[in-house]
């Protein structure tokens, strides 16, 4: 058996998991191995240090505070997180900015759809296409707004922190989809070289 295997037993011993039979074998080995002895001394010493660390817990009495919150029906976490509130404001501002950007992009793409459709298709079809484009861009923008707000809420409320990566991925996906949906008609227009005329738009 190698010293590496005995080190694992030493770790088990420090974790209170070593079986009595194994412990005897370990101690037999320790008598003849200086390296493992030193490893065990270091492990035991660290365990003792940890046990002494922060042994004196400061007294806290939160009864009055919690009972006040319970009577008021307001959890104390709401008033506590100054950082969280700042993050919430920042994220809300960012969300509104995104909403505006996507709103403008969406409206522009809807406008181009309608303008392009003037020359082809029936009036109903043109209206439907325009409406569809507008709805899609609005949905994307609203989705990005909701996800950004959720993300902000997760930052503000620490208990939601584990959800943060999922929210961020979801928000990112929605943003990418919205950008694509808004940018595709624009790209198509530019590639085909068709520009909407003022008179056509009207």
């Amino acid at each position: 058996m190698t010293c590496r295997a005995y080190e694992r037993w030493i770790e088990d011993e420090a974790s209170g998991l070593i079986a009595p039979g194994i412990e005897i074998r370990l101690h037999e080995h320790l008598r003849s191995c200086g390296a493992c002895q030193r490893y065990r001394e270091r492990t035991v010493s660290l365990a003792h240090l940890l046990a002494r660390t922060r042994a004196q817990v400061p007294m806290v009495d939160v009864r009055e505070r919690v009972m006040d919150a319970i009577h008021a029906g307001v959890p104390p976490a709401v008033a506590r997180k100054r950082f969280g509130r700042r993050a919430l404001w920042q994220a809300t501002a960012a969300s509104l900015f995104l909403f505006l950007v996507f709103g403008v992009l969406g409206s522009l793409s809807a406008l181009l759809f309608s303008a392009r459709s003037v020359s082809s298709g029936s009036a109903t079809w043109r209206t439907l296409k325009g409406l569809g484009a507008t709805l899609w861009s609005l949905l994307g923008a609203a989705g990005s707004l909701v996800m950004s707000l959720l993300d902000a809420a997760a930052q503000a409320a620490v208990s939601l922190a584990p959800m943060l990566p999922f929210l961020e991925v979801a928000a990112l996906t929605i943003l990418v989809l919205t950008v694509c949906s808004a940018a595709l008609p624009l790209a198509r227009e530019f590639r085909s070289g068709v520009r909407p005329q003022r008179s056509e738009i009207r």
Partner: protein
Amino acid sequence: MEQSAFRSDDEPDARLIARILGGEADLYGEIMRRYQRLVASVIYKMGISVDDMEDLVSEVFMKAYRNLARYRPENAFSTWIYRIATNRALDEIRSRRHRRRFGPLDERLPAPGPGAESAVNKKDRSAVVARALEQLPHEYRAPLVLLHMEDRKVSEIADLLGIPEGTVKTRLARGRVKLRRIIARQFPEYAV
């Protein structure tokens, strides 16, 4: 109301909780009197600063209050609240990491770096470990704290953290190695 609070001193947890759920909200003060030390202990030992401790202890009790109907009397209330406290402390550690905002663990300690060790006297040995613990990733810190500072068994730690016992064992061993490295690098005088 005062009278019922007085009578609640020696009442079992489960009965007390049933009364709270029945509308006697003031009895929750007695539950807090019994367990706030336990909650404060786990939060403090996880490396939360004294300044933040009171907020976190309050949050744990508020969370427990909101979820009191989910408590199952067949299990000890202490285990239930301990789990809430552990998870809350870990959330706080994770969110601090996420925000890259580390509060000082012990103001008496100098910033780590060359010469820092000479300013720390031997009485601060446990403060050195506390500082090193603060720098340990939470997945290694939690098992070490729960085992060595809170005297929990490996099986209990696995249950509290929701991970297999084998993972706890691995994290304990790796955590010790990492902790030793941090101490050796920043406070060589206290290397173990």
